[in-house]
């Protein structure tokens, strides 16, 4: 399937889900009204809606749905990129420990400076540290690199999860703890307009840079030695890719918490349709990931009277999908 055909299906779908995201929720607002509220500044519709409806759409839901789309885009592209450059179909930002590291860093940052850029910076630093830990454990071991890499990720994940538990203990149980616990399980309820100015552009730019390097990722997916012998500066490419992927993932985590599975399964599902070529895989994963994440966030808002954590929903969806993919591959992934 050509990229144009894929976009022909995916982009309208993304637009539709975006509108559903703005209209659905405890306080239902019809599509037409949502569209009118959105385009009022440009087209000057007569304001025949309540101020509260406008506030819900523009101040509450718009940032949240946009953040969901951007998060899904970032996690899915990073997952596809990791699977490509590490030549390992089992990895994702969650599996190799980046999200846990970023979660730990963000929690630490929140305790020290409160929510904001400080916690985002810490998320990035510890996300990157987690990545380096997983990589260096793998490097020091020979044998089946695919499995060792996963095991190293498991260990690093456990380490940072323990760190997060420790921080929860010392957090103020009246004031800080509830919001931290809720956020860590995955929630976009804290998303606000302020995220339009820094966090979202950061994720979008990082993801677009990764997508721009998509052919280089094809080259790296042959293996470092092969890429080197083709005359590619592999060190520089890897540093660039790992830097911006960690930047995107840690920014997602610092706002939306730890949402696993998206980065693992979206690339696989997209690959079944478009194939392994990253020229198509990365752009298609970006949009598919955005759609999936928006759908998950909508479900979180409407399934139950209380908001369900995103991490819970992605695990419920991700586990069976992953088992299906694993069984379908007949175990060929790990040998």
């Amino acid at each position, binding site marked *: 399937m050509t990229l144009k055909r894929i976009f022909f299906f995916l982009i309208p779908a993304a637009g539709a889900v975006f509108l559903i995201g703005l209209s659905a929720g405890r306080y239902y607002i019809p599509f037409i009204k949502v569209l009118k509220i959105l385009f009022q500044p440009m087209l000057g519709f007569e304001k025949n809606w309540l101020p509260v409806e406008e506030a819900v759409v523009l101040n509450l839901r718009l940032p949240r749905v946009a953040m969901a789309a951007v998060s899904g885009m970032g996690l899915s592209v990073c997952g596809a990129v990791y699977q490509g450059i590490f030549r390992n179909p089992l990895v994702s930002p969650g599996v190799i420990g980046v999200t846990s590291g970023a979660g730990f860093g963000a929690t630490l940052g929140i305790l020290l400076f409160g929510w904001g850029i400080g916690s985002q910076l810490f998320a990035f630093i510890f996300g990157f540290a987690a990545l380096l830990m997983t990589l260096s454990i793998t490097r020091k071991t020979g044998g089946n690199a695919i499995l060792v890499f996963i095991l190293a990720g498991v260990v690093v994940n456990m380490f940072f999860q323990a760190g997060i538990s420790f921080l929860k203990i010392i957090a103020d149980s009246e004031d800080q703890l509830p919001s931290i616990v809720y956020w860590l399980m995955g929630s976009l309820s804290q998303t606000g307009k302020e995220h339009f100015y820094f966090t979202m552009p950061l994720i979008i730019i990082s993801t677009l840079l990764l997508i721009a390097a998509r052919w*280089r990722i094809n080259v790296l997916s042959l293996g470092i030695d092969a890429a080197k*012998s083709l005359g590619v500066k592999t060190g520089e490419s890897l540093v660039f890719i790992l830097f911006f992927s960690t930047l995107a993932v840690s920014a997602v985590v610092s706002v939306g918490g730890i949402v696993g599975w998206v980065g693992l399964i979206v690339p696989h599902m997209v690959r079944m349709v478009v194939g392994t*070529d990253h020229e198509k895989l990365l752009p298609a994963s970006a949009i598919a990931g955005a759609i999936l994440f928006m759908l998950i966030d909508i479900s979180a808002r409407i399934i139950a009277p209380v908001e369900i954590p995103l991490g819970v929903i992605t695990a419920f969806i991700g586990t069976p999908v992953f088992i299906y993919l694993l069984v379908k591959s007949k175990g060929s992934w790990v040998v």
Partner: protein
Amino acid sequence: MLKVKTSPEDNNTAVIKVSSLSFSYGSGKLISDLSLSLMKGEILAVLGPNGVGKTTLLKILAGLLKKYSGSFKIEKEVSYVPQIFSTGVNYTVYNMVLLGRAGHLGLFSSPGELDREKAYEAVKKAGIEGLSDRKFSEISGGEKQLTLIARALASGAEVLLLDEPTSDLDIKNQERMLELLSELSLKSDFTIIFSTHDPSHALAVSDRSIFLGKGGISQCGATEEIITDENIKKYYSANVKVTKLEIEGKSLTYCLPIYNIIKREKV
């Protein structure tokens, strides 16, 4: 197939010049004080039993291993073709060849018209046009090897370093590979170094050969002079007869193994 070229040991037009190269692995010496030079368009075969450093030598020349002593100089652009590897990715044969252009493209560039043309030329040169749209994982070992060579050709390299290009191939594909190597050297002046387990392959296409042995010993020279019964005995501890055969009007040299096998008497 065989072409005769004089190649003086010390020549200013040498494309590859290796001077007292040594490489140690752990405590053992793998390569010790190795020197050789190769002129444009020449083929060098690297021979020796398993584990003596054939792949290591190629990887050093390809710039993939750094911890060697001594020096080497390669005047032209080099491309290294590893032994066939299993790969998680599954690109088409044409896209695989196109990846050979990587060295000419920046971090953010995708291949353009010129790159596509060069890749197509390389596909044609390697004789695999018919496979262009097939998946790399679905073609045979010989076809994979040809694809990897096409990828090296697409890179614009003029020096090819091939790690056992004929291993794992059936007889027909071995023949095809050897013909391709000699064609690349004769018609397009590629300088080629390849490692092989079969001295007959070296005799068929290479101008010069080098034996690598245990403990870092090595010996380099014109193929016909160096591939002898004695040297095979010395480096492989194997009994062979290197012999010239007149077949269909062509004079071909082979290295024939002498098996010491007692056969059951026929009843």
